[in-house]
């Protein structure tokens, strides 16, 4: 596909000007997605017919003289983002035949801008976890090495070039972790930046939509397209949306960057990640700006704190899956028993255990001891990050403490999820965070060694994108 080397704006511009044929792009996307599905199990719902229908819709708009800013740009949606003409399953037996009634929020905005929906991507059931293995539709394989986890079908689809963009959700870092595993970029913006309307989320105070892309400018273009207030989403914010995609990478100096003093104290930290990240800190200090260590004693508790809050919210949020109004129904002659059969047969084992844990810590003696205290710890973590960001422009940490896990190694713990050690803090505080792929110095191609995570001030996604653009263009880390 000739569009591969282009940014999404260049591709859309070529299509709008007639230099690139929309039909050629849609055929190439169809072919690439078919291959990606066979090789990596990226998709839950992928039919070539969907792409044809989408192409015809875009072509009809263009025939009427419209020039959509993302005309023909292929994108995928995680299968917990509702679409009006494709099933939305949340990778669960519970919703295997669920057809959403409307299509709103970020998915609608991408389509309104002319982007070409290629399909719905595979993920962990109800987006809880980033192993890519807890799916009713089977595990997702990493395009860079199929023995390894991809984290999610959205990241795998971008990584193998089947689509230019993917919209997925991030609850305690799943989007960023998956992007890091697949060697691409991912951004979770400030909470409220992107409408949550149309998401089937499990943890409303933590989970939000974000973007995965292979290029910084693509990430910026998509973020600009989907951001902004939404009268249908009370959590969306009335914040101005900057023109991200036209921001220059110059004039960044002098930046002030912080790294938590105890970043290397993670019990899950692998030597390879430690070495690569240490080299990154040295590269930043040499070529961009000094990196200062800052005492941040509470952030190390983020992943466990997020596990408690997330489990309780999931227990509450997923309580409407009872087999009456939609979704799977378990057979029983009595209503109460039907509820239990529905949920026992409709949910996978890991999710059932997670929801039971949520019920446990919401109840009686455990509520005050764990859930309430976790919400108080959230206050301290948020305060700690915000205090740091009053003095510094960015906080840098690894994205995950380990290299890409092997599939089937049993490392799919949700209680707590070690992969969220560095990512959950941004969700607890609602701050924007971006992951940038890192290789071992001297290595080209193959599996990414780690991800560099940039955490910024509220509403300052602009700076994250500017720094990512600088890293991408000049490779100053080496």
């Amino acid at each position, binding site marked *: 596909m000739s569009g591969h080397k282009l940014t999404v704006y260049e591709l859309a511009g070529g299509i709008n000007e007639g230099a690139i044929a929309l039909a050629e792009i849609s055929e190439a996307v169809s072919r690439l997605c078919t291959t990606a599905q066979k090789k990596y199990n990226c998709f839950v719902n992928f039919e070539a017919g969907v792409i044809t229908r989408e192409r015809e819709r875009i072509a009809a708009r263009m025939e009427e003289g419209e020039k959509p800013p993302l005309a023909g740009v292929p994108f995928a949606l995680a299968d917990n983002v509702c679409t009006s003409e494709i099933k939305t399953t949340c990778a669960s037996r519970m919703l295997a035949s669920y057809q959403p*009634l409307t299509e709103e929020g970020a998915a609608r905005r991408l389509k309104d801008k002319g982007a070409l929906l290629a399909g719905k991507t595979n993920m962990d059931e109800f987006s809880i976890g980033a192993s890519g293995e807890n799916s009713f539709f089977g595990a997702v394989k990493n395009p860079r090495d199929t023995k390894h986890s991809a984290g999610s079908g959205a990241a795998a689809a971008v990584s193998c070039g089947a689509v230019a963009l993917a919209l997925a959700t991030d609850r305690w870092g799943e989007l960023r972790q998956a992007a890091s595993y697949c060697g691409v970029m991912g951004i979770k913006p400030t909470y409220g930046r992107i409408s949550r309307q149309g998401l089937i989320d499990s943890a409303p105070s933590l989970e939000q939509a974000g973007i995965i892309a292979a290029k910084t400018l693509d990430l910026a273009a998509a973020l600009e397209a989907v951001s902004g207030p*939404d009268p249908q989403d009370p959590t969306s914010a009335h914040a101005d949306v900057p023109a991200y995609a036209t921001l220059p990478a110059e004039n960044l100096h002098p930046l002030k960057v912080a790294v938590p003093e105890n970043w290397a104290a993670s019990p899950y930290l692998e030597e390879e990640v430690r070495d690569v990240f240490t080299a990154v800190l040295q590269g930043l200090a040499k070529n961009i700006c000094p990196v200062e260590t800052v005492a941040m004693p509470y952030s190390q508790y983020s992943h*466990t704190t997020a596990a408690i809050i997330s489990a309780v919210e999931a227990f509450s949020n997923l309580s409407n899956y009872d087999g009456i109004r939609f*979704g799977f129904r378990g057979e029983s*002659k009595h209503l109460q*028993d039907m509820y239990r059969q529905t949920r026992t047969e409709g*949910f996978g084992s890991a999710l059932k255990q997670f929801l039971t844990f949520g019920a446990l810590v919401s109840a009686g003696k455990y509520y005050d001891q764990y859930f309430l205290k976790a919400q108080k710890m959230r206050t301290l973590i948020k305060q700690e990050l915000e205090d740091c960001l009053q003095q510094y422009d960015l906080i840098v940490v690894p994205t995950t403490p380990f290299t890409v896990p092997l599939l089937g190694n049993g490392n799919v713990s949700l*209680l707590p999820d070690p992969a969220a050690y560095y990512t959950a803090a941004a969700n607890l505080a609602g701050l924007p965070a971006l992951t940038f792929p890192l290789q071992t110095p001297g290595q080209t191609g193959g599996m990414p060694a780690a991800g560099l995570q940039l955490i910024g001030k509220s509403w300052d996604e602009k700076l994250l994108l500017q720094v990512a653009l600088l890293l991408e263009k000049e490779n100053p880390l080496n």
Partner: protein
Amino acid sequence: MKMHLYDIISHVIKWERMCIKLKVSIDDIRQASWDARINLTPEEEAGLEQQIIKTFKQLVFLQEKGLDKIEATYYPYAQENILREDVALPSLPLETVMSNAPDADAGFFHVPKIVE
């Protein structure tokens, strides 16, 4: 900083007391699975018990950090109502709304009987 024997013993006692607090019983797990309307297999119960013990051990900091006077944060930012214009908009047709129901007819959801 040197620690005296008294300090070490009092730390051990504090730790043991905390471990007692951190225990979870199978009965509590069964009650929680009932609350969640989920039947767990014995293997799932045992696996969850181990995960909870492991998690509670990692949550000792919640008992230690003097959190009582800290305000809880339930959402990252203060929530404000975003209201649309108070104008009636068309609703979805009834048959569309009920189209995903496993068992429905004539505008009603069919369910198994509620009373014996």
